[in-house]
């Protein structure tokens, strides 16, 4: 068991290296003077050309690329992400503010999509080819067809402007920073993000549960005299939810990607909006770091997903699939 976990987490290292390399070369290819992105701009203001050249030498910008990469990686691990061109503050500080905000709405969206996707998918499987099945399918497909930002604007019109129940955007009111107070800012963005995922989760749940329901061991359970509801909860669901968990985790990168647009609509200060604003301002040091962070997050999550699967399925745990 422990071996499996260690092996799984070690297996992400090569990917991690390739991802960081891609970002590193992406940064190398950026137009403009790299010095401006690496050094605190206040320190460098009014520096002479000689001083800048000295600094360049000191930072090793004239070293071979591989050496630079390794040093850069070391800096990243120390938390030195460079400086933003526009706000002149360290990227680490900016991201540290924005990261939790995105994590909150993506997490809530994930919970939302998982709950309704599983619930509706199970309903479809248990009542297949009935009105309930078709109804759920249509709702799900509507969710994946209406663009999130369009739904967002419609909901802002309805709940924020007409009914005035929820704010039009932002993350918190001054003075009220608790999670509960923030919740009303998170509801609409999370809904818009999660709604588009329901159809996929539901379809996967339905197909997976139906597949398990036809397995012989379900007949065995029935032959024991178990109740239909218990059979579904204990035997069908437990086996049928593994592909759904993998799907959910695989789709997390879609949520993070979608957060760019949704956060912009709701003026929600997360990483997605940070990315848009920094791209619009050609501040690529920030944009690249957001991209890197998102990729690393998705990578780590996929490993966590496999660990969850291993906990659920002994065949994976004992290394025999």
């Amino acid at each position, binding site marked *: 068991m422990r071996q499996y976990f260690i092996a799984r987490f070690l297996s992400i290292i090569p990917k991690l290296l390739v991802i960081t390399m891609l970002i590193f070369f992406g940064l190398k290819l950026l137009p403009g003077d790299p010095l401006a992105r690496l050094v605190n701009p206040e320190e460098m203001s009014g520096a002479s050309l000689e001083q800048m050249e000295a600094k360049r030498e000191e930072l090793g910008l004239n070293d071979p690329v591989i050496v630079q990469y390794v040093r850069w990686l070391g800096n990243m691990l120390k938390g030195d992400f460079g400086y933003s061109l526009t706000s002149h503050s360290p990227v680490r500080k900016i991201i540290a503010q924005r990261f939790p905000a995105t994590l909150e709405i993506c997490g809530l969206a994930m919970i939302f999509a998982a709950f309704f996707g599983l619930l509706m998918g199970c309903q479809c499987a248990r009542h297949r080819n009935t009105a309930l099945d078709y109804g759920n399918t249509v709702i799900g497909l509507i969710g994946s067809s209406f663009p999130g930002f369009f739904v967002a604007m419609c909901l802002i019109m309805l709940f924020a402007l007409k009914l005035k129940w929820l704010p039009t955007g932002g993350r918190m009111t001054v003075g009220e920073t608790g999670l509960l107070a923030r919740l009303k800012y998170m509801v609409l963005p999370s809904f818009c993000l999660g709604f588009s995922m329901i159809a996929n989760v539901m379809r996967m749940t339905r197909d997976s549960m139906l597949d398990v329901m036809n397995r*012989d061991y379900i007949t065995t359970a029935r032959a024991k005299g178990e109740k239909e509801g218990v059979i579904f909860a204990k035997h069908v669901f437990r086996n049928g939810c593994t592909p759904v968990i993998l799907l959910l985790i695989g789709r997390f990168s879609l949520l993070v990607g979608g957060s760019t647009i949704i956060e912009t609509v709701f003026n929600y200060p997360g990483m997605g909006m940070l990315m848009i604003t920094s791209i619009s301002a050609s501040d690529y040091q920030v944009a690249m770091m957001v991209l890197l962070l998102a990729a690393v997050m998705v990578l780590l999550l996929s490993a966590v997903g496999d660990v969850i699967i291993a906990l659920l399925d*002994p065949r994976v745990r004992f290394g025999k699939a």
Partner: protein
Amino acid sequence: MDTQNTILQIDHLKTRFKVGKKTVYAVNDVNLSVARGHVQGIVGESGCGKSVTMRTVLQLLSPNAYIAGGDILFAPEPGGDAIDLAKMDRYGEEMRAIRGQKIAMIFQNPMASLNPVYTIGSQIMENLLLHEKVDKEEAKKRIINLLAELGIPEPEQRYNEYPHQFSGGMKQRVMIAIAMICNPGLLIADEPTTALDVTIQAQILRLMLELREHHGTSVIIVTHNMGIIAEYCDDVAVMYMGRVVESGTVRQIFQNPQHPYTRALVRCVPVPGMPKTNDLETISGSTPDASIAFDHCEFEPRCKFATEACRKGFPQAVECEPGHMVSCFARGGQS
């Protein structure tokens, strides 16, 4: 029904499947009676409805299947009252109380019949706790004893293992343990050894005979293998196209087969010492499409002895010697 000597009696059972707009007539008119404490064999080609008949007994049918008529009388206690299983609600409490406790069933493919994510101990426990009020320690002891009785080595350790750690034969033993843990009166084995190696087959079947000795369980073995019938069963029923065409003791059926179909079945089993020049009998043609309802004897198109009467209607079951029933106008072609 004589509940003293009979544990299960099936009368005029009909089971059908709705497949799209078609109806499949899987079980057409099955009459069968299983003697208490006997091993009853049911034999027939694949698709003859033998498995469906047995699944109908416990109503373990797919959602598109339904019972179109007939009775399944089951008498758990000798001399007690018989209850009609065919009239019960498929998912109802009465039916669930029978399943696993009074009548247990094991299936053709032991590889797929155990839930991969639970230990085998907990899967046996599930059946026990459903029907009996025992505390977990006590239950565990009983399960381990049963596993030992069924020839599973190191039962304490195996109790906590998962199905994928067991071989096919061992899995079938676990299935038997699930079936036997509540000491059911009747054990239905639906092709229990078809998916297993020949050497394992004999072990599993012998095990079922031992269970009958020790627990007094009546056993039904469904198979397409006449050799298994000859070796392990007391009585046998021969099925063709959803009907029992002939039934009796194994001796009666093998020595004095009446129905042309039974005769062909008996003669297509090679017997050791048989002269090499003797041809094994084959049955010409193939089983007709079950989605077409017949208005006369289903075997007629393949029968060498068919007469005008065979094309007009269904033969009634006749007792040709005590306990030996046959449904055929031609009665083995002697007429």
